[in-house]
């Protein structure tokens, strides 16, 4: 009962890249990325100039209570500072949580049910008034108001009394589980241990909102900035956003945001092909332009391949994400472990990856967890299919399962051409299973019907394409919604496609959530993933990789593995 609505909303919106819908950004394969960043950003970055951001998705919600972001988002993070934030660094280092408004990432009590934060000295809003812990409490409380819904569902689930709280407009007494003993201290009381709380505190709901300036749903038109930029213009419901320097923001209290450009002009509602074309041409103002939600498609990548100057302006982004084949073991013949194993052996990941855009845009996956240390990635390949599948082994297993003459199954996919759950990927799966004597009938559903089918407990098909991305780089939000038996949602959006309910797994999830040592927790998430993998409840296919093009005058490219897109707070145009 926890993630459903908001998560489904988020995932449904993720047409091309998940990162896009979450307002997440980041990038850059640690390996080749550094080299490219060096090449493209000669000379020290200087303050000044105007940065243009070209996006497909308009910033139609700009209220910190309504934003569903990962790590505070891209453009929102320029205006809203939060208790903690993501580390603005390339690659794996960018998956760390670091302090933002607070002096540290949070001090837990013994069982991680109580988190205490102290604010830094000298924090000010754009109008010069000081930021207090009461403003942060008020910001969190606002997100409980029905008219400001849209944020991640965790607060309501985790905070004591959160499930019934109606927000400060209906309930001015506030939420008792958030205490502010003085102007600098804030304490959160949770109803269960949550070692991941510092990750949650990166969300914009943890941005301060001055009660005197709050006018409910209208607040997003002129939110009070705590970050390096303030909103000067917000036109057409977030299609055009103009940000200028906030004179009261100080680098002394913020070691994460650089804020090199003087102004930032966010233009959205553009077609992704148009964005990539404008960035590649880089004429006029587009030379100092970046995008935080558009990546290069396979054809665009092929086009760029022959142009060295252009190739030097492509950043590589990783984001914790897995595309997989889901089984519903309640449907025959997928109740048979041997059938699921046979399919796992038969899959030709080379074909599947080519269908997903080729090796530059997808990495083969044999684990459910993304291949990043932050998630607790523990390599395993229980049913080694090699690069191109092992049809002989698959046939053998099918024989043992009682299908010596092969079998016919249906694969449900979406008709949206997103190269993730799309006909191209489904056809590649169909072709590789054919080698093992498995005839696959393709059932293509329109986007809404597809999501309705795969998120339903009762109507879920037996075998379908699915995908999953976490709200922050940790094993918890990645594994729990998929494999925690208590998170099977009977009526609503169910992500536990296998309807897997193993008391031992549920218990281990609870145990890991108690850990506040994130490295130790990651290790156990990895071990848990490896153990669940033995059941062949899914066939991991690939982890997407994002290629981000940027304008020719753009310097200081930072793409973290948290978001997978260019960090706009680091970019310089002079």
């Amino acid at each position, binding site marked *: 009962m926890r993630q459903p609505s908001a998560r489904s909303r988020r995932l449904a919106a993720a047409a091309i890249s998940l990162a896009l819908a979450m307002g997440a950004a980041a990038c850059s394969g640690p390996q080749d990325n550094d080299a490219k960043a060096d090449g493209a950003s000669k000379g020290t970055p200087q303050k000044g100039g105007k940065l243009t951001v070209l996006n497909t998705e308009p910033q139609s919600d700009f209220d910190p209570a309504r934003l569903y972001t990962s790590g505070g988002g891209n453009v929102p993070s320029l205006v809203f500072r939060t208790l903690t934030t993501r580390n603005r660094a390339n690659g794996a280092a960018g998956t760390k949580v670091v302090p933002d408004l607070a002096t540290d990432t949070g001090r837990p009590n013994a069982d991680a049910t109580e988190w205490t934060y102290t604010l830094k000295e000298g924090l000010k809003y754009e109008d010069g008034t000081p930021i207090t812990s009461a403003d942060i409490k008020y910001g969190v409380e606002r997100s409980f108001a029905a008219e400001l819904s849209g944020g991640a569902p965790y607060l309501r689930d985790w905070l004591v009394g959160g499930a019934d709280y109606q927000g400060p407009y209906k309930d001015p007494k506030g939420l008792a589980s958030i205490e502010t003993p003085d102007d600098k201290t804030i304490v959160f009381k949770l109803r269960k241990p949550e070692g991941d709380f510092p990750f949650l505190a990166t969300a914009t709901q943890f941005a301060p909102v001055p009660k005197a300036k709050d006018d409910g749903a209208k607040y997003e038109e002129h939110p009070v900035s705590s970050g390096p930029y303030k909103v000067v213009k917000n036109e057409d419901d977030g299609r055009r956003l103009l940000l200028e320097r906030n004179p009261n923001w100080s680098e002394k209290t913020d070691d994460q945001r650089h804020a090199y450009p003087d102004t930032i002009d966010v233009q959205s509602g553009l077609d992704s092909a148009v964005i990539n074309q404008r960035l590649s041409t880089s004429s006029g103002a587009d030379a100092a332009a970046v995008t935080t939600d558009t990546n290069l*498609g396979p*054809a665009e*990548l092929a086009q760029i391949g022959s142009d060295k100057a252009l190739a030097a302006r492509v950043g590589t982004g990783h984001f914790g994400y897995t595309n997989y084949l889901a089984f519903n073991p309640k449907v025959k013949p997928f109740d048979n472990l041997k059938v699921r194993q046979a399919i796992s052996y038969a899959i030709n990941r080379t*074909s599947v990856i080519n269908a997903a855009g*080729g*090796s*530059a845009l997808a990495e083969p996956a044999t684990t459910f967890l993304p291949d990043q240390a932050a998630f607790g990635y523990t390599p395993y390949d229980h049913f080694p299919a090699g690069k191109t599948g092992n049809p002989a082994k698959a046939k053998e297993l099918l024989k043992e399962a009682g299908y010596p003459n092969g079998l016919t199954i249906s694969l449900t996919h979406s008709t949206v051409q997103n190269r993730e759950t799309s*006909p191209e990927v489904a056809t*590649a799966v169909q072709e590789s299973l054919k080698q093992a004597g498995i005839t696959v009938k393709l059932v*293509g559903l329109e986007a809404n019907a597809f999501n309705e089918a795969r998120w339903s407990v009762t109507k879920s098909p037996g075998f379908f394409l699915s995908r999953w991305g976490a709200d922050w780089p940790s094993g918890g939000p990645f594994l729990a919604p998929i494999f925690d038996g208590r998170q099977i949602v009977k009526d609503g959006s169910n992500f536990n496609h296998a309807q897997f309910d193993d008391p031992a797994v549920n218990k281990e999830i609870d145990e890991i959530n108690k850990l506040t040592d994130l490295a130790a927790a990651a290790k156990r998430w990895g071990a848990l993933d490896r153990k669940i993998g033995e059941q062949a409840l899914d066939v991991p296919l690939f982890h997407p990789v994002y290629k981000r093009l940027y304008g020719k005058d753009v310097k200081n490219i930072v793409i973290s593995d948290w978001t997978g897109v260019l960090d706009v707070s680091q970019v310089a145009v002079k």
Partner: protein
Amino acid sequence: MSTVPDLPASGAKAGAATVVPAAASDARQAWRRLRRRPSAVISTSVLGLLVVLAVAAPLLAAAEGQDANTYHDALVDSARGGVPIGSFGGVSGDHWLGVEPGTGRDLFVRLLYGARVSLLVAVGATVVQVLIGIAVGLAAGLGNRLLDTVLSRFTDVMVALPMLVLAIALTAVVSADFPRPLLLILVIGLLNWGATSRIVRAQTLTLKQLDFVAAARLAGSGRWRVARRELLPSLAAPVITYAAILLPINMVIEASLSFLGVGVKPPTPSWGQMLSSAQTWFRADPMYVLLPAGMLFVTVLAFTALGDAVRAALDPREAVRLRVGTRASSRGRTARTARAAASEAAAAADLRKDTSS
């Protein structure tokens, strides 16, 4: 005569007047005129060749040694988005027209099998449209005023419906097990017969007034017999003409539906589906786009040229007028045009002689 679908009664009547003399007995005359037109000969040859290619697809695939669905992962450059390795989209002795980006499937074979779907759906849908159009149009033209009003208004509604939107909705809700080409034939055929029906009705109303029909009625023929023996043969000319115009339209609709992802199911190829996947590749791999686009272009052009030729052949007066206009505007081809006009005039004279005898 009226070939324009959205010209209602007035256009149809004017057209009817010119077509009236062309009775069934003139079929041979029309055929002779048609054969004399180079555009008719060329377009028929092109279409004939396409049909042969489509029918012989398995043989030609065997000759090349490929099939439509086998992946060739080694033939695409995975690191560069899956673009085919080699020039012109990976053209080689093994793959005569190159391979598809991302999959390495053989484009030659996919184009041939795509022709099957495109031609089958276009012809099938046209047959459905013509049959329904004749049935409704005849019933409206021959029936009493109430029946005419009801059927005509129903036809108006069908013509006014946003065809593509409905087709998308229908193809999306029908069970996945239903054969897709048949579904496409039915959806396009059942939604787009309105214009045919209007033409048939207008023609019927005109024919009904003529002496030979009245004579048949007086001789005691029933409505059904009149429709079958007297009206249908006279309706052939406008209906065949309009069918020739419907064919390319239907082919484009099939391509549009497949382009939008509600046409044939993968991995079955159709030209529209190929165009759809090729749309982003126009710069990185132009061959991939040009092949299905070229095939579609040539086929639609051939159908259109044939339709135009058929119309002209069945409508001598119109043909002569058009030719005269052409001569005045293009001096370079005067002699040839004049010769053509002369032959058309002779044909028209033949026709008049026939009808008067």
